[in-house]
């Protein structure tokens, strides 16, 4: 396949979705890493998915009505918020068992989702969609709904720096359902954790560099997915890993060169 303007327009919504998701998820991912609750995002993402599935399965509403389109998202949001607030409340009591509880919550939510889907003819496929995502199906109309949410999360996180202790869980629960719906659980996890790990050794501008890594990940992933015609979600996860691995080395090289030229006289 060759690249053309057509290609760009095909892949553009997916990339823009990735860019907005990076905006909100890179700073949140760094906080997740700092707090050492890595599985929280998997748990919250799975709860969001469970909320969406429960709405669709239990209420059986026409997918193409307004309620059918936005109801699952609302239900996923409620489930994610419930999950996040529960763990926020538990944080003080559970102590070092917090991570274990989060892991259990993830497994429970995942199993419940499977049980709910057992009688759905598209069950297996929808489960896969929720995990691996269908980022290529992301549409400008989806982005129009989700982008303000990600900008809001990013803005609040940076404006109210002193309230982060309290803000972290609700913002997290707000961002994740929108992201899961568009790109799937695996890619949400990747967008949170890989860029955060890539910049863990940096001192300044961690968020900025994290977003750079994430954008590289999305671009390279979409390009390889196009060239080899792979499903885009998994391809981006792999390229995100690659970019996060390469970033510290590249940064080191550049940093050392700078030091050699600029500061050799000092």
């Amino acid at each position, binding site marked *: *396949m060759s690249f*053309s303007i*057509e*290609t760009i327009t095909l892949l553009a919504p997916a990339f823009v979705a990735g860019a907005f998701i990076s905006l909100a998820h890179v700073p949140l991912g760094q906080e997740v890493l700092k707090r050492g609750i890595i599985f929280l995002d998997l748990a919250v993402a799975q709860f969001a998915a469970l909320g969406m599935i429960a709405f669709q399965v239990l209420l059986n509403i026409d997918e193409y009505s307004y309620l059918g389109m936005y109801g699952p998202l609302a239900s996923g949001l409620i489930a994610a918020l419930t999950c996040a607030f529960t763990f926020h409340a538990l944080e003080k009591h559970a102590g070092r068992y917090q991570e274990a509880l989060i892991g259990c919550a993830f497994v429970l939510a995942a199993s419940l989702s499977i049980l709910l889907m057992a*009688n759905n003819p598209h069950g297996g496929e929808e489960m896969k969609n929720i995990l691996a995502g269908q980022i290529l199906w992301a549409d400008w109309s989806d982005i129009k709904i989700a982008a303000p949410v990600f900008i809001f999360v990013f803005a609040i996180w940076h404006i109210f720096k002193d309230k982060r202790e309290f803000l972290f869980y609700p913002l997290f629960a707000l961002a994740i359902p929108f992201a899961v719906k568009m790109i799937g659980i695996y890619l949400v996890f990747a967008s949170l954790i890989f860029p955060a790990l890539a910049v863990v050794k940096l001192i300044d501008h961690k968020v900025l560099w994290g977003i750079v890594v994430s954008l590289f990940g999305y671009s390279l992933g979409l390009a390889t*997915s196009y060239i080899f*015609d792979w499903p885009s979600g998994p391809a981006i996860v792999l390229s995100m890993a690659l970019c996060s691995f390469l970033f510290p080395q590249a940064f080191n090289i550049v940093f050392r060169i700078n030091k050699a030229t600029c500061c050799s006289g000092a």
Partner: protein
Amino acid sequence: MRKLLFLIAGLGVLLASPSSAFARMNVFACSPEWGALTKEIGGDLVDIKSATNAKQDVHHLRAKPSLLAAMRKADLVFCTGASLEIGWLPILIKKAGGPNVQPETIGWLMASDYVEKLDVMTEHVDRSMGHIHPEGNPHVHLDPRNISVLADIVTERLILIDSTNATTYQNNLKAFQAKWKTLIRKWEVNAQTLRGQKVVVYHNAWAYLLKWLGMGVIASLEPKPGIPPTVSHLETVLVRVQGKNVTAILVAPFENEKAAEWLSGKSGIPVVHMPFTVGGNEKSKDLPALFEETILLLKGSS
């Protein structure tokens, strides 16, 4: 990082190269049988992209860039319809389809709109009944008489889209219909012995074939359409087939054969791996070969 830069530079070069332009018509087929039929009529004048191959279930599809690209340049979208592709076609059309292939336009051809459908639901339908298509059974392609109807329809569409080659399309259609008529007659004679025989199916995807050949279905391995076989359901199927002289368990290439093998082991009824569509096995290279193979396999098991 350097490698990355090289890659980016490489991508830049690729971007700069102009996309290849064909004067040929681009046809997006959801499944191989519609691609094969269009090829019979369009010959070298059409470029066919089939969204699925014979080993994939057209109910489900992963979003891949090639699908978007193929839909973007499609002049004709030829699918089954009747909700068969509802999980992905509407979103793909909305996202990548040009104005000439939107629903209800010349470039939008749904095979099931043009043939009489079986199992049409007149009563209330909901999700609890499994993967029911309220518009009727969508697997219309395995009745060769439906293929004949659609050959006319697709020719009509090809001519409407590309009138300069109208004569070629008409000639190809004439040749195809003459050949097809003889073949149907031959198959019907050949399949005389199959009349009245009963089979077990995995999914109700064989209704049109079996009705054409005068055969019957005694049970489906799926408890409800689209729901994978369960132990308790398989046990009721086993009871139902005993002493009924069932000749085969039909399985399509994309269906899980484990349940069929379990039933075969308990009942002695052979599992028959049917091609289901063009490319479904090595010999089923085109539509005539597909039906040839299908009848051969059915007769082999009886």
